[in-house]
């Protein structure tokens, strides 16, 4: 198992939601034996109360829960835009239920009882997804913060540069002298910490993409 958290993202935890304390305990024990941290909750409500967006990791969720069901919790998290990878467990999975869970973005659907490898592989996959999402998020945040220090003129120049216009075309369209455009362009490259034009275009693409 190489679910090592070598990158700077916060420590990943497996959140287990099952109303059966024995199952909860056993799953925690199993996951801890793989060297991972766990937290257990006995209901969907309990998990929602404790949840904060900076909690990294994944959710191992039982379908049949008192109060809100596992599927309902999945729907609510997706609606609230809280992107945490989810592994669904059930004692009696029928095809429509599996299809519904997978469509709603579940990483894996496990039918109880399951083997350790099945669960741990699913967790590894979920962690990778979580990590990728968090890295992407961090990158976007830093680009946005750099963008914030640009002056309005510099931002205008950056937009036109990334749209593929030459310095001459930019000077004409903004009614500036060529020398001034070159100056702005140099400042943009410096402030955005871009190594090349390609780098700058990539940054602008990333923040433009929804």
């Amino acid at each position, binding site marked *: 198992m190489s679910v090592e958290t070598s990158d700077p993202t916060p420590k990943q935890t497996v959140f287990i939601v099952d109303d*059966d304390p*024995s*199952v909860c*305990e*056993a*799953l925690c*024990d*199993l996951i*801890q*034996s*793989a060297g991972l941290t766990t937290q257990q909750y006995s209901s969907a409500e309990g998990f929602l109360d404790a949840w904060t967006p900076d909690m990294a990791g994944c959710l191992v969720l039982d379908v*049949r829960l008192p109060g809100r069901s596992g599927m309902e919790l999945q729907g609510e998290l997706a609606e609230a835009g809280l992107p945490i990878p989810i592994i669904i*467990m059930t*004692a*009696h999975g029928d095809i429509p239920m599996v299809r519904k869970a997978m469509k709603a973005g579940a990483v894996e659907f496990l039918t*109880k*009882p*399951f*083997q*350790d490898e099945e*669960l741990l592989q699913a967790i590894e996959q979920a962690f990778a997804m979580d990590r990728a999402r968090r890295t992407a998020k961090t990158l976007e945040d830093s680009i946005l913060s750099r963008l914030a220090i640009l002056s309005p003129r510099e931002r205008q120049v950056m937009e036109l540069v990334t749209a593929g216009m030459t310095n001459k075309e930019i000077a004409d369209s903004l009614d500036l002298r060529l020398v001034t455009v070159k100056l702005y362009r140099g400042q943009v490259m410096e402030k955005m910490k871009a190594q090349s034009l390609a780098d700058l275009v990539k940054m602008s693409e990333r923040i433009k993409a929804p």
Partner: protein
Amino acid sequence: MGADPNRISKWLAEFVAKPLGIAVFFVFLALLWTFPLQHVIAYPFVFLFFGAIMCSAWFGGYIAGSMAVVLSSIVVTFFFVPPFYSMTIAREFRSYVAAFVLCAMAIAAVSSSRRRSESAVRAARDQLEIRVQQRTAELERSNLEITERERQLRLLTEAIPQQIWRTDANGAVEYCNGNLVEYVGMDTHDLRGEVLFSFLHPEDATQFYQNWDAARIVNGKFEVQARVRGVNGSYRWFLIRSNPQLGANREVACWYGVHIDIEDQRQAQQKLLVAQDDLARLSRTLSMAEMAASIAHEINQPLTALVSDAHACRRWLNGQPANVERAVASSERIVRESTRASEVVSRIRSLFNKTDHVRESTNLNYLIQDLARLLRDEALRHDVSIKLRLSENVPSLMLDPVQIRQVLLNLAMNGMEAMTTTTGIRELEISSEILRSKEVVVTVRDHGIGLAEQVKAKMFDPFFSTKPQGTGMGLAICRSIIEAHDGQIWADALECGAAFHFSLGVNA
């Protein structure tokens, strides 16, 4: 008295003028004929005057007769008694004239009284005649009324959209209305004297005669639902109701009956039954599925914990270095979870084992007869006849009648369903017998598709079914019920069909 001129003149005309006229007329006639005739006969000839008096009295009555006597006496004295043409009478003729007058008076009296009695007779006859005519007219009128009323009544019986009949005390047809004639396709003439009930379906005829015989004992009405054969040979369901009409000695004079077509209702009822049946089966299947899901969940929870704990235990021991402390904790949880799993299993078992025993002294034959009655409609639907062959010396047993009825019902329904696709004998036989006075054996025998060897081996197992919508619980439940009664249940594959038996101990 006030003298009314009109009445006086009327009186005068009636009692003076008319008799006088008649008397004068006849006496004058006699006088005219006597003159020529007296030359032929020497003796004073007076006989014609007797005729005149007789005629006057006859036609004019007593008064006219008396007047004719007076007139005749005067005329005879004047013309024909010497001395002629004078009113004096010669001495020797006095007795003659007296005799004449006496005779004349007698004739007048006799004639007028004859006439009176004659008139009285005639008047009586006339009156009688009038009476007869009146009576005849009345009779004709009432006859007409009766005919009209009868016509109306007949119209009514023809117009009623039911079939109506009247039979004599023994059931021979005396009258049928048009609807009935049309339905059975024989005209009234052919039907007359025919036993109407020969049109009943043979299977329903028994029921009909039972009800009729019961009604005959008490001279009461009866009612039965039966199939009646129509002109095209097909049967329709009718509600037959009949009332007896009692004679003077309180014996049945005739039976009046009506056939009400209930085929459509019956079919609707059948459809409803089928729908209910399907619904019941569906809900049974659904609840089975739900229960299975719930049981799976109950068992899977401890199993999941067990498997996870076992894996964790192995992983702790395989670690470098091995974490014995955690491994021990995991293995302790394994023990705990195993206990819990077995508790879940025994709890589920106890769900199906009802511990409250009901044991009542029950006659199995009654139970079977009861069931056969219950299944009458179901049997009709499967086109199967149920035959009972019950041993009379079956003793009452201590058993749970509800459960044993369920066993009987299950076996009977299975038997009927086994015959849905076969074409042979359509008979389900339920029999009871006592063996070595120790146990009662009940057999349900069908002529259906029979039992394959592999079916026979597994059919009492739970969840084993050969039916597409079967739950596979029917025979399993039967077996658990019979075993709870310390009995046995088994089946024989026959050449045609199958026989299911169960035995119950007499002392159980």
